[in-house]
């Protein structure tokens, strides 16, 4: 792989209490669907914060399109990288269209109102995310699945090259989970959008993503195609849990099942 869109070189991060990330080197190519997996507290969300410019690495460097993140202004970065958090709540009543138009903020001047081009971008994003018919509703009145699609529309309205998603479907039911991942995959294949997804669900990762990294205690312990890294030994090492890994005949992808107290390992 040649120089990637997102390059992390020996990135470490520590806060006042502990070392959260240690010596992370990753290279994510344009158009890739990259998954970051690992147990709670392994530093996944911190890595998303580093990539979105909210935090800066203590050591090492992160580059986007060959330029260090430090050289980007906040709005310049927001024009190229958009973030979809686990959950979004708003303190004041805003309409769905207003929330999606907030995605145009990095494209506007300091004082500006959105112009025709911005409204068009927002409408395109809402159509892609399937929320065009919600435009006039209040955001706080929507269901969890609708809210998450609106937040994705807001991220798309930024017209980014990279979409960072931090466990975007944790609070959704299975139908909405599938809807959102199908949407993300079509954006990636039709529009060349690069996805960087933090996930808990190993089966979703196997089904939808093209490359995975396992994080444990702030270090990358496995990196590669889902077929390579979704191995019962790796998963036992990362999660300290025994699983059975097999190939699903219908999807052709790997499935991971926990074994509970039944011992005996698994096979791939």
């Amino acid at each position: 792989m040649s120089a990637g869109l997102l390059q992390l070189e020996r990135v470490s991060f520590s806060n006042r209490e502990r070392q959260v990330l240690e010596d992370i080197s990753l290279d994510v190519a344009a158009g890739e669907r990259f998954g970051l997996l690992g147990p709670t507290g392994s530093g996944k969300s911190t890595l998303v914060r580093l990539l979105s410019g909210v935090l800066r690495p203590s050591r090492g460097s992160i580059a986007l399109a060959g330029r260090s993140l430090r050289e980007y202004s906040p709005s310049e970065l927001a024009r190229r990288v958009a973030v979809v958090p686990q959950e979004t709540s708003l303190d004041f009543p805003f309409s769905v269209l207003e929330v999606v138009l907030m995605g145009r903020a990095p494209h506007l001047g300091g004082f500006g109102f959105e112009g025709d081009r911005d409204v068009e971008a927002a409408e395109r994003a809402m159509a892609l995310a399937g929320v065009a018919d919600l435009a006039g509703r209040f955001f706080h009145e929507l269901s969890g699945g609708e809210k998450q699609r609106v937040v994705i529309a807001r991220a798309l309205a930024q017209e980014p090259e990279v979409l960072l998603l931090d466990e975007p479907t944790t609070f959704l039911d299975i139908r909405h989970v599938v809807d959102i991942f199908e949407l993300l995959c079509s954006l990636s294949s039709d529009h060349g959008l690069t996805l960087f997804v933090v996930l808990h669900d190993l089966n979703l990762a196997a089904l939808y993503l093209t490359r995975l990294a396992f994080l444990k205690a702030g270090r990358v312990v496995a990196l590669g195609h889902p077929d390579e890294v979704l191995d019962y030994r790796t998963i036992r090492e990362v999660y300290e849990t025994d699983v059975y890994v097999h190939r699903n005949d219908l999807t052709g992808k790997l499935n991971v099942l926990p074994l509970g107290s039944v011992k005996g390992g698994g096979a791939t």
Partner: protein
Amino acid sequence: MSHPSRLTRERARAVLAGLAVLLVASLAGAAMVGGVPIDFSRAFDFAHRDSPDFVIFFRSRLPRVILGAAVGGGLAASGAALQALLRNPLASPDVIGISGGASVGAIAVLALGVPGPAWIVVPGAAFVASAATLAMIVRLSTVHGRLNPYSLLLVGVIANTIAASLIMLVSSLVDSLRAQGVLIWLSGSLAQRPYSLVAVVSLLCLAPAFVLWTQGRSLNLLALGEEAATQLGADVARVRRTSFLASALAVGAAVSVSGVIGFVGLIVPHCLRLALGSDQRLLIPAAFLGGAVFLVWADAAARTLFAPTEIPVGALTALCGGPFFVFLLRRQEEGREI
């Protein structure tokens, strides 16, 4: 209540023009109202500038209504901005204790007789005290790097109590003449202020409100949380610093001349948000104009309701605003949108 699904420049202009017309009409209308009836034609008879009608209108009522407009506007615009900054619909300068802090600053100067021209020293002391109080309140109600909305209200209550105690302490220690002045000032009055003071305070309320207006779009993004606002390109630290300082300046100026006039910064932004939507690019200037109209008429009511006796306008706004606050708090507690 519903509102159009987005704010356009045209709608913002139309709403603000309407409110501006309403404000001008209110200034003229409220200046005609008072304990003593005045005659319109005689009040505007510039050939007889010593007629009682002329003197009452231009020397007594007009500076008073202009001052009321500036103070009401400054408090309401600060309230709207503080609610967005602190992510709390119940925040307003008086509820979270900034007004109390500002009044301690002003009273210290009044009671101790600090040398220098009063129109600089009193607002200056009030501004320094309001900025210091705001910084302290934000710091004390931040838990694990996040502003806790309930801590904020509680710290505000405590700040107000401490401010009240300090004021009592200061006024009991100075001589009775000065204590009298403090007491009169405290009750929140807009009466008997010269034009020079009116001009200074108006500028000190208007300019920060304008600065807050320029932060409108970033304040909108803050409704998503600080992290999301950063990820949408907002320079959150700068927005917070600019907006806190501007709010403290407007509140300091308002309090330094009129004492604590409570709940204007709560009622006005809340009602306007229901009518116009949450977009701060309209809400902040609309709150300025709406707060101006509100306080002009509240003051007109304060001087006519029990005429010829005047009641303090601060007492009137607190009597309306207190129950309103409790109503909002109940709704929020019950999880309803406010």
